[in-house]
């Protein structure tokens, strides 16, 4: 009765408050967005509820999306076949001799994994499982070790091939290959900053000091050769895409065939069960990500139809000074990223702020990178920070303690992000 007396605006406000409560009490994100979309469609003259049903099919009819399960599968196969361990060894030999050896190995391995899996979640989980116990053994404080791994996982969203960049490319109609290319420089920038921070803290706290300093070229070559399948995978994935031989989906499919053939051939994969485990993980993640994309798209359509996106964009543009607009944009991205998962945040917030970004001269590629860097910082920012959840589960440490330990990395990454955004005001 009370609901019937409410205007559409009041009803949507009520639905928004209700959905925030549902989100806070842990109802799955797909459903929270779905319920808001349902209320909107039920009250809208232009969008019937049947639109929600058909969008569950239509949103999926985009070929670049088909790369997502394949990229995840590549990462899972790398893990199941033990190639991940070879990659870790190679990274250790290359950069692990600096102060903070295993910490830097974790960050370096995260960057290589990012170039293989395209997923921050998969990167954090793989590096966490492989290196967290070792970091603990080497005297790293538990929260610091977990924070280092969580921060390294952020690279998964920026270093190509990134699943989030694929989703951005599809949503904005931007070349995914160009986005991948644009991700290299900020990805390396973030990597360098993370290694710098870890080196400083490790030296100060004598973490990993038992490692002998200096690089052994022979051993480095040996470990590189041992990690050849992993390195070859990156060559196929990125080389194939950048040279223009393959589309992202094709390169991922070729990488799956390549890893399977070599892993079976060299006895790294000896049972069907290993393949099934890898495939199951990929499928589960697919079943989680894509439904969220669908309901996020529905909300984005609704917000656009309500004129909310224009309203917010105009409010930001109204600040007039480029620096004020820039910091307002970055603040909104960061705040949204702290409470929302990266995928819905990308689909809801990026279109909303795109006119303001264009107003200060950022093209769609640069805007994609700036947005994604901010979105990825959300992976290690409470309360939502997905990487913090993943690593706190692996390390069995309270989430909030890891969130505190990650602060130096967070500040470093925010610094790179702001720097990148400011530079692009002038380029």
């Amino acid at each position: 009765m009370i609901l019937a007396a409410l205007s559409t605006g009041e009803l949507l406000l009520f639905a928004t408050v209700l959905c925030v409560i549902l989100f806070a009490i842990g109802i799955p994100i797909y459903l929270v967005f779905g319920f808001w979309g349902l209320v909107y469609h039920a009250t809208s003259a232009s969008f019937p509820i049947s639109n929600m049903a058909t969008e569950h099919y239509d949103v999926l009819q985009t070929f670049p999306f088909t790369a997502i399960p394949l990229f995840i599968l590549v990462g899972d196969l790398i893990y199941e076949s033990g190639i991940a361990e070879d990659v870790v060894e190679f990274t250790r030999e290359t950069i692990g001799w600096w102060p903070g050896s295993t910490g830097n190995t974790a960050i370096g391995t995260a960057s290589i994994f990012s170039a293989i899996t395209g997923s921050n979640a998969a990167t954090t989980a793989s590096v966490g499982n492989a290196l967290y116990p070792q970091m603990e053994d080497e005297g790293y404080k538990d929260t610091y070790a977990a924070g280092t791994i969580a921060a390294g996982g952020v690279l998964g969203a920026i270093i190509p091939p990134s699943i989030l960049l694929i989703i951005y490319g599809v949503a904005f109609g931007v070349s995914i290959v160009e986005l991948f290319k644009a991700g290299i420089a900020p990805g390396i920038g973030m990597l360098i900053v993370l290694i710098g921070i870890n080196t400083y803290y490790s030296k100060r706290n004598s973490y990993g000091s038992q490692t002998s300093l200096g690089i052994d070229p022979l051993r480095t070559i040996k470990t590189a050769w041992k990690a050849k399948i992993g390195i070859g995978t990156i060559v196929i994935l990125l080389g194939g895409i950048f040279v223009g031989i393959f589309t992202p989906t094709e390169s991922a499919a070729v990488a799956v065939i390549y890893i399977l053939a070599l892993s079976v051939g060299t006895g790294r994969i000896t049972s069907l069960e290993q393949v099934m485990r890898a495939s199951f993980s990929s499928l589960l993640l697919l079943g989680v990500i894509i439904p969220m994309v669908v309901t996020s798209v529905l909300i984005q359509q609704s917000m656009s139809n309500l004129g909310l996106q224009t309203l917010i964009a105009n409010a930001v543009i109204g600040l007039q000074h480029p620096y004020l607009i820039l910091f307002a944009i970055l603040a909104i991205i960061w705040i949204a990223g702290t409470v929302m998962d990266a995928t819905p945040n990308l689909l809801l917030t990026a279109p909303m702020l795109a006119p303001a970004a264009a107003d200060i001269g950022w093209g769609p590629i640069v805007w994609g990178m700036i947005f994604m860097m901010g979105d990825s910082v959300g992976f290690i920012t409470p309360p939502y920070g997905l990487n913090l959840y993943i690593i706190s589960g692996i390390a069995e440490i309270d989430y909030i303690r890891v969130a505190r330990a990650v602060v130096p990395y967070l500040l470093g990454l925010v610094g790179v992000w702001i720097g990148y955004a400011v530079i692009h005001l002038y380029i």
Partner: protein
Amino acid sequence: MNTTLLRKLERNFEGYIGTIMLFAYTLLIGYTIFQRETFGDPPAYTLSVTLYLFTWMTWLAAGWAIRHDSHFRFTLLRERLSNRVNYALRYLDIVSWVFFAGIITVYLLETLQLRLESGRQILGTPIPLWTAYLAVAVGMALIALRSVQKAVLIRRQYKNGEDITPTSKVDI
């Protein structure tokens, strides 16, 4: 059939079907590249069949993810609640899933009917187009089914005094 096999099927039925589809489309893409690079003549149906399999995989996995507690959610508050409150919230989860899946299915039926009557086929194949839309309906039915099953499992775990806090983990 022995119990171990039945248990595996119960836990991962959608996973087995999804795996077949995932490798089928991997091979299909591989075959297309081979045809294109060797003969310059890639098959026309690749794109549509890949999307068809992708659609089925996604909606099969969406329901399956409920069985394994994998759907992303904000768990910080839930982890701090008692098992008793979590038990009540688990039922709210389940009612929400069944309600939402029901709504989508009901409103999809009209589209499904239209596609059935149109007699259209997936581009380059004899596969009827309505079977692609059917993936969503089947997915929603599985979401409802897996939710009801989850209710039974949670009730059993709660009675046994086990922790029933949701996890959002994507490993098996």
